[in-house]
């Protein structure tokens, strides 16, 4: 194929279906837009030469034309949709419940869901949304979006720019709205032009031929829309960089001071108080619901002090902190500072802060002394009255009985237990007793059964632990921009229409044709107004219903 010179004199790029200037159907190319099988012309891209449909020589061109196909794009979207849907059938790996048979995915899915679960796991659907092929699929949709848009926008833009007022009769005849009038006076033509201008059409007048156009802007809607989508995809891509997006979680118990994750050790947080308020059960509005399901929280709140670390030579423990700010963090009231946002996200109630024990003589029930253990930092030994001394042999902050004997699950003081060694002034050795597990089966175990002294819990103080989400998201404005551009594109394409009316001279009369990308009724009304009081025939809707 070569460049095609139309009889109107315009040279069209190869692959052109309708001459860019006069619209004459170009012989041999009509199959591209399916014009060979219909009376009406396919006007979607103005019959312009979409390059991808014509050149297919190098590998670059082949890749290009593959992605420029809308069919390919739609299939990519369908595959992504189906895969996303399948991924929701069973929980993703990170959502395997804590009380599941096993948190090991190779066991969990098969045990819980049987064969389908096994297949789900083996095909990798349990980590679908971070699997390479899923991400590749999303990326390919992005590629398809870019190439499809470029491949259509450029030729369409050129075709609309190069169009002439004079069109080939065969182009006009094959428009959906068309009429022919044999005798029209110059006065009537002038009248038509004035009427078109009145209706805010841009009128071009070339050698007696008229092209009236309105709302070409609407044709760019889809491309503007795609630019918005591409910006959204880019924003999602940027979220993978830790500069643009940080999402961390920090647990801080009341009274504790700890680093805020994600802030490069620049900021520290102290939990002054965690508050959990519930709805009043005496309020008749809530009483019934509370009776049904127990206390209902009305507020979770953490009062915090934020510290900023002073410039230090090396990170470590001897850091100097200065108070940066104090804040109350609760639902819908995150605390924002220096680009970071802290959200109230979780809590743990009732961990032990201190425990006070009494040492008592079993024989006469006389209390020797008391001592208080700070559970966050217990001492090795506690000196008591009269030369008594208690040594902590073992300390389990969250006691449980493991397969290998007593152990601690974490270092959270949820269920403390101790092995005490009590040494008395008058005997050489020490009496050993196991004390604790107050949350399950309170134990005060005497290993030998011959102890003379008992260590008893007499008092305890509790604290709560607050969980805060730390987030920094510089990509949000970009998401907002993308979404705004997306919406502008949608509106541009939806609320405006590209209407064109051609009035071409033929002999003594005129050929009248109209085209719009939507709302044909409106265009017909426009034409009706334009030709009223003239002898020009109203257009006939030649729509083919197939």
């Amino acid at each position: 194929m070569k460049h095609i010179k139309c009889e109107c004199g315009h040279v069209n790029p190869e692959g052109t279906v309708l001459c860019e200037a006069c619209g004459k159907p170009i012989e041999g190319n009509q199959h591209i837009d399916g014009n060979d099988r219909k009376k009406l012309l396919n006007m979607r891209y103005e019959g312009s030469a979409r390059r991808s449909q014509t050149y297919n020589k190098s590998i670059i061109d082949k890749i290009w034309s593959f992605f420029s196909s809308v069919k390919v794009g739609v299939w990519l979207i369908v595959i992504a949709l189906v895969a996303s849907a399948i991924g929701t059938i069973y929980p993703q790996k990170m959502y395997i419940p804590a009380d599941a048979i096993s948190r090991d995915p190779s066991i969990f899915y098969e045990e819980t869901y049987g064969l389908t679960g096994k297949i789900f796991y083996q095909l990798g659907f349990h980590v679908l949304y971070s699997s390479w092929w899923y991400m590749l699929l999303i990326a390919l949709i992005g590629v398809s979006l870019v190439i499809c848009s470029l491949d259509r926008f450029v030729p369409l833009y050129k075709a609309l720019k190069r169009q002439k007022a004079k069109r080939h009769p065969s182009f006009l005849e094959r428009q959906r709205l068309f009429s022919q009038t044999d005798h029209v006076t110059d006065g009537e033509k002038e009248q038509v032009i004035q009427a078109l201008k009145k209706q805010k059409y841009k009128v071009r007048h070339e050698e007696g031929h008229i092209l009236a156009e309105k709302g070409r802007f609407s044709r760019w809607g889809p491309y503007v829309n795609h630019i918005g989508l591409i910006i959204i995809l880019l924003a999602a891509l940027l979220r993978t960089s830790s500069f643009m997006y940080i999402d961390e979680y920090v647990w801080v118990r009341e009274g504790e001071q700890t680093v805020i994750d994600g802030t490069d050790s620049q900021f520290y947080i102290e939990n002054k108080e965690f508050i959990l308020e519930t709805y009043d059960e005496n309020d008749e509005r809530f009483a019934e619901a509370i009776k049904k399901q127990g206390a209902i929280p009305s507020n979770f709140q953490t009062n915090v002090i934020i510290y900023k670390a002073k410039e230090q030579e090396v990170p470590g423990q001897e850091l100097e902190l200065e108070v940066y700010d104090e804040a109350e963090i609760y639902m819908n009231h995150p605390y924002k500072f220096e680009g970071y946002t802290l959200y109230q996200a979780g809590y743990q109630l009732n961990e032990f802060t201190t425990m006070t024990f009494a040492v008592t003589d079993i024989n006469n029930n006389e209390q020797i002394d008391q001592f208080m253990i700070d559970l966050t930092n217990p001492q090795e030994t506690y000196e008591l009255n009269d030369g008594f001394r208690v040594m902590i042999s073992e300390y389990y902050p969250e006691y449980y009985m493991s397969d290998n004997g007593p152990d601690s699950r974490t270092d959270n003081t949820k269920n403390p237990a101790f092995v005490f060694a009590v040494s008395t002034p008058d005997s050489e050795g020490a009496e050993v007793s196991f004390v604790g597990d107050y949350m399950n089966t309170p134990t005060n175990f005497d290993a030998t059964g011959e102890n003379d002294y008992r260590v008893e819990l007499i008092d305890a103080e509790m604290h709560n632990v607050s969980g805060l989400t730390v987030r920094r998201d510089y990509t949000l404005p970009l998401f907002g921009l993308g979404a705004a551009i997306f919406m502008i594109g949608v509106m541009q394409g939806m609320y405006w229409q590209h209407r064109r009316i051609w009035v071409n001279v033929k002999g003594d009369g005129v050929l009248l044709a109209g085209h719009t990308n939507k709302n044909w009724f409106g265009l017909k009304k426009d034409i009706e107004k334009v030709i009223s009081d003239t002898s020009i025939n109203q257009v006939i809707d030649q729509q083919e219903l197939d």
Partner: protein
Amino acid sequence: MSLEDRKASKHKKKKQRLVFRAIILSVLLGAIVYALVDNLQKDKSIYKVGDEAPDFELLQVNDNNEMEKVRLSELRGKGVMLNFWATYCDPCEAEMPYMQSLYPEYKEKGVEIVAVSLDGAELRINRFIEKYGLTFPIPHDKKDTVRELYKVGPIPSTFFINPEGVIVDKVEGALTLESLEGHLEEITPQ
């Protein structure tokens, strides 16, 4: 326009088109590769193999070791195994005897084992040290500063740092005796 001119301009256009397409496609390919590689990297920490290990200083709590403080930069010239652990973590407990059994030999060869404890109560660390007779330095990271610095996720987590202060390996999860020895060999000064 003569036929030759037209041919020449057509040829030029074809070339331009190819270059344009190649550029667009390679930009898109670049973005995809970046997105995939970045997302599939399990290791989200800032410091990766090949980076210089960031310096820190912590108080040391093991009485069996003469060091008072551990400052990483002062260990330059020695290979350093930087281990993050806690007393309540069973896999950490499992690898501790291996570390202790190899420590005296590799200390001679110029390798230091630094086991940063993420525990709360020092008492528990002391009991643990007694139980396993540990002699290597155990800094106590009370405020989680160093954990955050190294972006340590699940423990145990171990960085192997060569005498030049560069991270040569990072292991998440417990080490066996053999693999531990292999890693220590790797960071032994020549």
